[in-house]
């Protein structure tokens, strides 16, 4: 199959599933890439927890923070579906910074992330990215804003209304009346920007080796494995990633490391036009397309 044909089929497959996909797969050693709309900037939802982890681990490594220091976190008491961990806790908990990092990345815990953002505010995280030479990811607000969308204001049997709004109200240039979906106001980035970040984490870069190693380890522990993981993990391949989900946005960025040593960074960002909260078919299709791009790239390498 030619590359043109592959991309056309991929676009069609995504459209049939009601998705607009922005994907980029990069061979981390040759630098070869294959992608679809890889430079479109979208709100990134929980993907922002990767830059947050990089900035926090960097501060621990530099001695500005003590990873063992306990932070008392107020209970989130969230009852709507989605949020995990401390966000759902009903009582205060004291957790060490190292463990907040684990909760923030492995189970995408908003409570843990916001405790970390309280130590290293969004502007400082953005500054760290700049220092490491990673461009294209905007960090503008902590994550608690992600759990205050129209979806939280509708009754459970009316959640599809929030999704109709999310899917239909995009304005020109990725603007949106819902702040969390407005690429100009939310934490945002493109598939390419996240592949750059993964590349810098998995191969030698301006990110200190110890920091990169710890973030790789955290991403390897990701527990949310329903999206891309089923198509990328096996006994012969290790999948490390972070997901991001918000209203009609379904993202995942990660690295697959094959037993033969080849490694590929995969960034799959998507927005759905289907007004439904739960869409396993869309997740499966996103993974399928990402896998097909990966397979085409790996086949070319031989």
């Amino acid at each position: 199959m030619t590359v043109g044909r592959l991309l056309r089929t991929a676009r069609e497959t995504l459209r049939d599933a009601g998705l607009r996909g922005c994907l980029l797969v990069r061979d981390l050693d040759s630098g070869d890439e294959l992608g679809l709309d890889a430079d479109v900037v979208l709100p990134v939802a929980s993907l922002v927890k990767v830059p947050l982890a990089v900035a926090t681990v960097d501060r621990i490594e530099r001695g500005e923070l003590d990873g063992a220091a306990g932070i008392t976190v107020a209970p989130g008491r969230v009852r709507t579906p989605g949020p995990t961990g401390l966000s759902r806790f009903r009582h205060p908990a004291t957790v060490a910074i190292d463990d907040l990092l684990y909760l923030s990345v492995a189970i995408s815990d908003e409570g843990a992330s916001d405790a970390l953002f309280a130590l290293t505010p969004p502007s400082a995280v953005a500054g760290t990215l700049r220092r490491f030479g990673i461009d294209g990811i905007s960090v503008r607000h902590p994550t608690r804003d992600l759990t205050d969308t129209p979806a939280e204001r509708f009754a459970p049997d009316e959640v599809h209304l929030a999704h109709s709004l999310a899917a239909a109200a995009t304005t020109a240039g990725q603007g949106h009346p819902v702040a969390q979906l407005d690429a100009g106001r939310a934490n945002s980035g493109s598939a390419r920007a996240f592949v750059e970040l993964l590349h810098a984490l998995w191969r030698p870069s301006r990110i200190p080796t110890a920091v990169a190693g710890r973030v790789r380890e955290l991403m390897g522990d990701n527990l949310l494995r329903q999206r891309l993981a089923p198509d990328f993990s096996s006994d012969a391949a290790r999948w490390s990633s972070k997901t991001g989900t918000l209203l009609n946005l379904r993202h995942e960025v990660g690295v697959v490391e094959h037993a033969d040593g080849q490694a590929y960074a995969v960034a799959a960002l998507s927005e759905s036009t289907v007004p439904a909260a739960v869409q396993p078919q869309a997740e499966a299709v996103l993974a399928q397309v990402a896998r097909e791009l990966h397979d085409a790239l790996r086949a070319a390498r031989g």
Partner: protein
Amino acid sequence: MDLVAACRAFVSVGTHGSFTVGASVARIPQSVASRRVAALERHLGGRLFDRTSRSVTLTPFGRDMLASARRIVDLAEAMEHDAERARLRPFRLAVPAVCAPRSLARLVVEARRHDLNLELRRGEPAERARLRQSLEVRAALVCVPPDEAAWRVPLGLAGGTDPDVDMLRLESLRAPRADRRARRRRVWISPEDDVPHVRDPLTRLRDAVGLQPTQVAVAVSVVDAAADALAGTDLVLCSPAEAHELGLHWRPLGGLRPVRGYQVSAGAREDAERLRGELGAAVARCLGVPEAA
């Protein structure tokens, strides 16, 4: 007194100069002709004829009246002719494209029995609304939500093979995770049902049970939809009558009761009432309203 009938008798007798001949030309018995002329004479207050034993001649008063009487007779004939033509002028009615030709023909026959010369125009919902708006038709059967409808047609799913179940659920079309590249089964909505009160609840259910957006879609025509159902495993949203016509197996849809509703849109209330009243049963047959309902 029937002035027109009396004038007709007067003109006929006066023209032929005889009660016998005049009555026979006017196709009435002579006694009736005499009675009518006598009544007219009383009405006008003067004798029209001089009657002798041998012949009948117009009086001067009768001669003066003959021209007026002739005008009345001519006018009455012209009016009857116009009435007949007006009765035969076609009543244009826009009907759904999904109606079977046989049932439409029976509707036209039934209408003629009620002195209504129907001329049917088949079209999809938007086309019928357009015809009605541009006054190209006198009335149209338009799609309305069931609670406003004069006729209701329950819809279900029909496929090429017997599904072996009493009811088809939309979620049974969901592709299992392990089934990757197989073509997803689809439900085709025919253009007749591309209206919000039928289409939107179905697409909402599609999204809620996790089907792909393409799995419930509007077909170009009911023929295309039926072809996909007959050739493959797709299903068509249709009435039991349509399924029968297309040779498909019909089943109700689980969890949703889509209903086509129809109402008459007409310029004159009287036209709408005729279609709903004396022709109501024939219209119901065309639309595929189940017999029991």
